């Protein structure tokens, strides 16, 4: 197991280096930040002075080496818009992003889990149909519209929950619901089909032949096997949630890292972009690592191979 983790860590480091390298060159391709920072009537000389100050007059390759050297020390440069280090700007936003991603993830997986079991256990077909229908209908509505509908109902009409910003747990409810239920249909279908596949396995017949009841067989035998595919997909999704919560963050004015990166892109604040990409990719590979380890814990075949 330890060897496995070390191997995965090495892969993770390489992945992160690759990602920030790509981010560095892409931001350089996007255009000259000096031109954006200065007023349109600035002289050529002024522009060149600024470029020299920012190190932009060096050859691209030298710029890259300098950048990587600094990055190793945790220094991603100053934000071009606000005179603070880019990294601290990003790190300020990380807790908000994590909070939203994790809570909506919990909502999605938790609901899928409960509803999936309910669908297996119920004797009534209409319950199954209803759950499937609701989950699908939810997925058909874009995050943006669904968020606005929730604001309309719970903030404006009922006045139960705040409609924007971050602070109390009450602030979290609507964004987490909006984002979490979007993933629900996917998880539910996956969980359901893997439970159905497990049902056909011989060990299920064996368990019944021992005299076990339906619920016992479901929970003790089928569930541990059926969780495996769910863990894989949920892991990938959690990673995507970290970077892809922008729409939700915008609707609910949530101060997350996703929104920061999008703003920085429009302002060509490239140190912030690269720092943000770095932080998100680090979180992404950590989650993947956790998923792999979890997989080994759940499935002895992986662990022993």
């Amino acid at each position, binding site marked *: 197991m330890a*060897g496995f983790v070390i191997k995965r860590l090495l892969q993770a480091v390489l992945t992160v280096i690759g990602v920030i390298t790509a981010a560095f060159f892409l931001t350089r391709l996007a255009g000259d930040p000096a031109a954006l920072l200065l007023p349109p009537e600035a002289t050529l000389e002024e522009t060149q002075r600024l470029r020299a100050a920012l190190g932009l007059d060096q050859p691209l390759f030298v710029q890259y080496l300098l950048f990587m050297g600094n990055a190793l020390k945790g220094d991603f440069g100053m934000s071009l818009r606000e005179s603070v280090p880019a990294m601290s700007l990003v790190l300020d936003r990380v807790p908000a992003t994590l909070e939203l991603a994790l809570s909506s993830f919990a909502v999605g997986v938790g609901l899928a889990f409960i509803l999936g079991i309910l669908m297996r256990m119920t004797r009534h077909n209409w319950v199954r149909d209803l759950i499937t229908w609701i989950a699908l209908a939810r997925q058909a509505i874009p995050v943006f519209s669904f968020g606005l509908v929730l604001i309309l109902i719970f903030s404006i009409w009922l006045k139960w929950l705040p409609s924007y910003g971050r602070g109390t747990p009450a602030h979290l409810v609507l964004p987490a619901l909006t984002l979490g239920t979007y993933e629900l249909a996917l998880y539910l279908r996956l969980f359901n089909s893997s439970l159905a596949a497990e049902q056909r396995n011989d*060990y299920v017949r064996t368990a019944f032949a021992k005299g076990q009841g339906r619920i016992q067989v479901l929970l003790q035998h089928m569930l541990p096997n059926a969780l495996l595919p769910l863990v894989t997909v949920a892991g990938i999704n959690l990673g995507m949630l970290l970077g892809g919560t922008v729409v939700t963050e915008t609707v609910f004015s949530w101060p997350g890292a996703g929104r920061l990166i999008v703003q920085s892109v429009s302002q060509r604040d490239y140190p912030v972009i690269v720092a943000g990409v770095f932080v998100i990719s680090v979180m992404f590979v950590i989650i993947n690592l956790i998923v792999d380890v979890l997989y080994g814990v759940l499935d002895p075949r992986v662990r022993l191979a």
Partner: protein
Amino acid sequence: MTDAAIAAEATPTTALDRVPVLSVHNLCIEVKTPDGERVELVRDVSFDVNEHEVLGLVGESGSGKSLTMLAVLGLLGSGLRIVSGSIRLRGQEITNLSFHEMQKIRGKAVSIIFQDPLTTLNPVLRVGKQVAEAIRLHNPDKGEAEIKARVIELLSLVGIPNPERRYSQFPNEFSGGMRQRVVIAMAMANEPDLLIADEPTTALDVTIQAQVMEVLAEVRARTGAAMVLITHDLGLVSEYADRLAVMYSGRIVEQAPSAELFASPRHPYTAGLIASLPQLERKVETLYSIPGFVPDPRKRPTGCAFAPRCAIANGRPLCLSQSPDLESIGANRAVACHYSAETAAWSTAYQAKLENVATETPLPVRKQGDGTTVLRASNLSKVFTVRGKGLQRSKLYALRNVSFDLKAGKTLGIVGESGSGKSTLARVLLRLAEAGGGEVYLNGSPLFSLRGRELRQRRRDLQVVFQDPYSSLDPRMKIHDVIAEPLRIAGSYSAERVNQLLEHVGLTAAAGQRRSPEFSGGQRQRIAIARSLALNPDVLILDEAVSALDVSIQAQIINLLKKLQQDLGLTYVFISHDLSVVRHICDEIAVMYLGRVIEYASTEAVFSTPAHPYTRGLLAAIPRIGMWPHGKGLLARGDLPNPMKPPSGCAFRTRCPMATALCAENEPVLSDHAETSHLSACHFALA
């Protein structure tokens, strides 16, 4: 005498013993197909199983044998239901019990062992826990420590070494044979009155099968449980069952004590099955084969379901109009056939014909049997590098110095169990896998040295037929096109040629217009053979080509292969785990163990005077009709060693009943110990 019979004699009969453990009466099971049609899969089945008795339930696939026993457990799948009839366990009617009420009976009064030990255990739960569950469910007042002690006792009872350590391992740390022992331990946990064994050893190698059947007999003798042994293997039931019930198309067609059934079958189907079974003791030129195939249960013929295939029906109106009832004949026997009195005459006549063939007619001369070597392998080797944990790499010697020399028109049998390297050999011969060393000569040309066009030309002379006729044919293509494919590639397509090929394998040109899903397993294998013959090959590699087929169909294909060999002068490499089939079709045999050929001789020599202890163990392990008990002392012990770490010296020594200190030091070479052409690799080979 079987262990059950010994146990029966030792126990005095009490009144309770006279109530059958299981009594099934007029059981009918139906399935509702998706289009709402109701089809009867089990029809009017009745039988009793008595205390200590082993009832063999025999039939080919689709006969309804497994369904009947699943009904006894109340575990029929969705869509299936009992329409009428009764099932009594020790006199208690169970067909009207709910799923919940049956929970108290399942695993307690009745338990079951399923076929494939690789899938019957839950892969993510520890083995000990899974056995413990069976105990806890029916003994809620037992403490954890008590349960664990009982599990360990059970595991050692079924012959699992180190039960304490094994308790907390996962199923994938066990070999197939060991897993089946765990399943037996689980089934015996609450000392059930009735044990159902559904093809318990079909997925196992024959040496392991013998061990597992022995364990099963031992644990049963201890508790006196009755058993229903469901199988397609006539040899197996002949050895282990006291009484047999033969099923065909959902009905029991014959019931009799085991010895009587094999000595004088009364139903034409039973007689046909026995005649079509390749047996170790005899070699016949052509096996009897029951014509046609089992009818689709939706389109059963009116009258007797066996009528279209029956050797004695002769289209008599009674057979075609009226389904025969199961009627008792004599004290313990019953048969469902209008003309069962004629079966004995048919069997005698058939037997006489066989003997005539054997004594009077000389074997037909084969077209090309002129003694030239067609296929020669010299010192083939193949090493796989297997990735272990981290950076660890281990070497697996799948083939070590395999050589043989095959003459035109002959058949070489390659025999071995899983892990022997026989499938790797097939792949290497076909160049599907690159050999690590050695050379194969086909008609004198070195195959491995050929490149490009010449290789493609030569390769046509060497074709293959695989085991699974289901996956090797494209279901979307017409059969005509399937067979035409190699011809088109070679640029020699003509419709006549395809029709001729179809005719060779006993199919009509019209069959070419249908697609493979419309054909049964046996017919698909015929199609696969026709395709392999398209380019007029000299050599066919038959890789377990008849292993997946039912007995009656298997005989058809074996006969077809023999006929084709005679007509076309083909040379075969016949790879199989089934020694009875090999005996029947091969001229020479190479027995493999852990990548080496350990015995190589003519078929007659291998069967009459096997020289290597492994070959003797293999032969002793094969269940056969009317022979029991057989040389138990010869059986190979234990499991196949880890092929990545083969034992020093002789690779077989960990399982050999004759091993000495010398065997651990020196590896025996394949040689002729008695100046004959009978080769074997053992220091103490019998000449």
